[in-house]
C-alpha cells in the first residue's frame, strides 16, 4: 500500500469530475466521501503496519529525484488531515440542503485538491515539490474563499491571493538561491550543506524563507489581512483553513527549520515573535463583534502559541505543540462547523446571534470546545498548554512565561463573555436542531476533545515518538541518502 495513493487518487478524482458531474450531483458527493473514507482507512492501516520510516520513490530515487518520507510524524498529520476533511465532507452533506454552493461539483474538486496538496506538503522531501504543493493548496484555498461570489467573499479571495502571490515570489527566490549555492533540491542534502554556507547568504535565504512562510503561516507582522479573509469566507471553509491548511504550513515551516538550522540560531527571536503575535491577536479580539472574526483572532493566537512550542526545539515542547495542535484543530472544527449551521439558520453573524440562538446541542458542543481552547483541565487543550508552560519555566524564560499567561488571561476574558451570552435564558421558544449526521460529526469531534483531555497517556507514546522523529535531523538524512 503505497502512500502515493493519498495524492494520486484525489487528483484522479478531481481531474475526472467535470465529466462525472454530468451523471448527477449526488453521485459526486457520495463518491468523494467514499474516496475520503478509503484514504482514512489507508492511513490507519499504514499507521498500524509501519514499524520503521519508509521512502516512496517517484520516477527515480532520491536524492536525485523526489521521494516521499513516511515516518510517524508524517503519518500523524496524514491521519489528521484525512480525518478532518472526511468529517467536514460528511457535515457538508446536510449543510448543502439549506444553502448549497452553486456548481457543486467544482466544490468537491477543490476539497479533494486541498486534501492531496496538504498531504503532499507533509510527505514530500524535495523543496521544489513542496513549493508546487503550496501553490496547489493555495489556489484551491483562494477559490474556496471566493466561492459565494458576494463582494465580501470576492474581497477575501482577492486579499488571500495577493498575500499568497507575494509569498510565492519570496519562496521561489529562496529556492533559487539554495539551488545556485548548493546545487541540489533535496532536503537532506540541503540540510547537510546549509551550515557550510557564508553567514550572510545563510541570513538572506533564511530571511526570504521566513517572509515567504510567514505570510502563509500568519505570524505577527505579516497577518494583517488574515481576519478579513476569515470574515469574508464561509464558516465552513474557515473550518478547513483553520484546522487543516494552516497546520500543514506550520509543519513545513518547522520541518525546514529543524533541518536547515539545527544549531538553534534564531530560536529566541522566533519564540518572542510567537508570543508577541499571540498577545496582539488576543488584545485585538477583545473589541470585535463579528463571530467569525473573533474566532479568527483566536486562531491567530493559538498559532502564536504553536510557534512558541515548536521553536523551542526540545522533545517535550514539540510533543506539547502536537497536543495543542490536535486540540486546537478539533475545537476549531467544532466551532466553525456549528457556526456554519447557525449562520444558515439564523442569518446573523454578529455576536448578538448568541443571545437569540436557541439550540441546546450546538450550545453544549460550542461551550465544551471553547473550554478546551482555554485550557480547562480534563479537556484536550489543558495537556498541551500545561506541558508547554512547564517547559518554558524549566528553561528559565520567565518573560516569555509572563507573556503567555497574560495572553491566556486576555483570551479567557472574551471567551467567558461568549460563554456567558450562550448560557443566558433564551426568549425564543422554538429550538433549532441540526440534522442527525451533523450531530454525529460534532459528537465525534467533541468526544475526541474529551478523550484526549481525560486520557492523554493513551497517545503520549505516539506523540513523544513523533516529536523526536521530527527533531531528528541525522536519521532523516541517513534515510534519504542511504536509500541510493
Amino acid at each position, binding site marked *: 500500500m503505497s502512500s502515493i495513493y493519498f495524492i494520486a487518487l484525489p487528483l484522479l478524482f478531481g481531474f475526472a469530475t467535470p465529466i462525472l458531474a454530468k451523471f448527477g450531483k449526488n453521485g459526486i458527493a457520495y463518491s468523494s466521501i467514499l474516496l475520503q473514507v478509503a484514504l482514512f482507512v489507508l492511513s490507519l492501516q499504514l499507521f498500524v503496519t509501519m514499524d520503521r520510516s519508509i521512502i516512496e520513490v517517484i520516477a527515480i530515487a532520491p536524492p536525485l529525484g523526489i521521494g516521499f518520507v513516511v515516518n510517524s510524524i508524517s503519518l500523524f498529520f496524514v491521519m489528521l488531515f484525512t480525518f478532518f476533511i472526511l468529517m467536514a465532507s460528511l457535515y457538508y452533506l446536510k449543510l448543502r440542503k439549506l444553502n448549497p454552493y452553486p456548481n457543486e461539483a467544482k466544490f468537491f474538486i477543490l476539497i479533494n485538491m486541498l486534501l492531496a496538496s496538504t498531504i503532499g506538503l507533509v510527505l514530500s522531501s524535495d523543496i521544489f515539490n513542496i513549493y508546487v504543493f503550496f501553490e496547489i493548496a493555495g489556489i484551491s484555498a483562494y477559490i474556496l474563499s471566493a466561492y459565494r461570489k458576494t463582494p465580501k467573499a470576492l474581497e477575501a*479571495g482577492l486579499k488571500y491571493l495577493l498575500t499568497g502571490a507575494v509569498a510565492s515570489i519570496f519562496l521561489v527566490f529562496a529556492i*533559487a538561491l539554495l539551488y545556485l549555492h548548493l546545487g541540489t533540491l533535496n532536503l537532506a542534502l540541503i540540510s547537510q550543506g546549509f551550515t557550510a554556507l557564508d553567514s550572510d547568504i545563510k541570513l538572506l535565504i533564511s530571511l526570504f524563507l521566513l517572509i515567504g512562510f510567514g505570510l502563509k503561516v500568519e505570524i505577527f507582522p505579516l497577518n494583517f489581512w488574515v481576519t478579513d479573509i476569515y470574515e469574508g469566507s464561509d464558516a465552513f471553509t474557515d473550518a478547513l483553513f483553520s484546522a487543516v491548511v494552516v497546520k500543514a504550513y506550520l509543519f513545513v515551516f518547522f520541518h525546514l527549520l529543524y533541518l536547515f538550522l539545527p544549531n538553534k540560531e534564531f530560536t529566541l527571536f522566533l519564540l518572542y515573535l510567537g508570543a508577541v503575535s499571540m498577545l496582539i491577536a488576543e488584545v485585538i479580539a477583545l473589541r470585535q463583534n463579528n463571530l467569525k472574526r473573533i474566532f479568527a483572532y483566536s486562531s491567530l493566537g493559538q498559532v502564536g502559541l504553536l510557534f512558541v512550542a515548536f521553536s523551542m526545539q526540545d522533545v517535550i515542547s514539540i510533543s506539547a505543540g502536537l497536543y495543542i495542535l490536535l486540540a486546537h484543530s478539533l475545537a476549531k472544527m467544532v466551532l466553525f462547523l456549528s457556526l456554519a449551521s447557525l449562520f444558515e439558520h439564523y442569518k446573523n453573524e454578529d455576536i448578538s446571534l448568541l443571545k437569540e440562538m436557541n439550540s441546546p446541542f450546538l450550545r453544549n458542543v460550542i461551550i465544551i470546545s471553547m473550554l478546551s481552547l482555554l485550557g480547562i483541565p480534563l479537556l484536550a487543550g489543558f495537556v498541551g498548554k500545561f506541558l508547554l508552560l512547564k517547559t518554558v519555566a524549566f528553561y528559565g524564560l520567565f518573560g516569555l512565561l509572563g507573556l503567555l499567561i497574560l495572553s491566556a488571561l486576555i483570551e479567557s476574558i472574551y471567551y467567558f463573555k461568549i460563554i456567558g451570552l450562550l448560557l443566558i435564558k433564551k426568549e425564543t421558544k422554538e429550538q433549532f436542531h441540526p440534522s442527525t449526521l451533523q450531530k454525529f460529526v460534532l459528537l465525534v469531534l467533541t468526544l475526541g476533545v474529551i478523550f484526549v483531555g481525560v486520557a492523554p497517556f493513551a497517545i503520549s507514546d505516539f506523540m513523544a515518538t513523533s516529536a523526536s522523529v521530527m527533531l531528528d535531523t541525522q536519521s532523516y538524512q541517513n534515510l534519504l541518502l542511504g536509500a541510493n
Partner: protein
Amino acid sequence: MIESILYYFNQTEVIKTIVTLGSMGLFFVGLFGLLSQRHIIKVFISIGIMEIAVFIFFIGLSFQRGLTAPMLGDAHTTFIQMNDPIPHAMILTAIVIGMAVLALGISFAIEYYKLTGKNRLDEMNEMKN
C-alpha cells in the same frame, strides 16, 4: 581596444554581475509598484514584474560560458559539456504557476468590479472593523 572591452564583457563573472544588477533593478521596480500602487491591476502587474525578475536572476546565474544547451543536435551527440537542465525545468513550472495565479486574481478583480464598481485597494473595505 574594442577587442579587450568585448573580451572583458564576455567573461562569466561580468555577465553574472550584469544579470544580477539588471534583475534586481527589475525587482526594485516591481516592489516599488507593489508598495505604492493602489489600483488592483497595477498591483497584479507589479507582482508579475517581481516574478519575472526572480526568474531572470535564476536562469542568468545558472549559465556557464562555454557549455552548450542541454539537448542533442547536429554537433553534439552525447551529453557532455552541457549546461544544467534543472533550472530550466524549475522555471518552466514556476512560470506556468505564476501565470495561473495571476489570471485567477484578475478574474476575481473583474467580478468584484462588476458587483461593486471599486477597483482600488484602499476602497475595498467591505468588512469594517
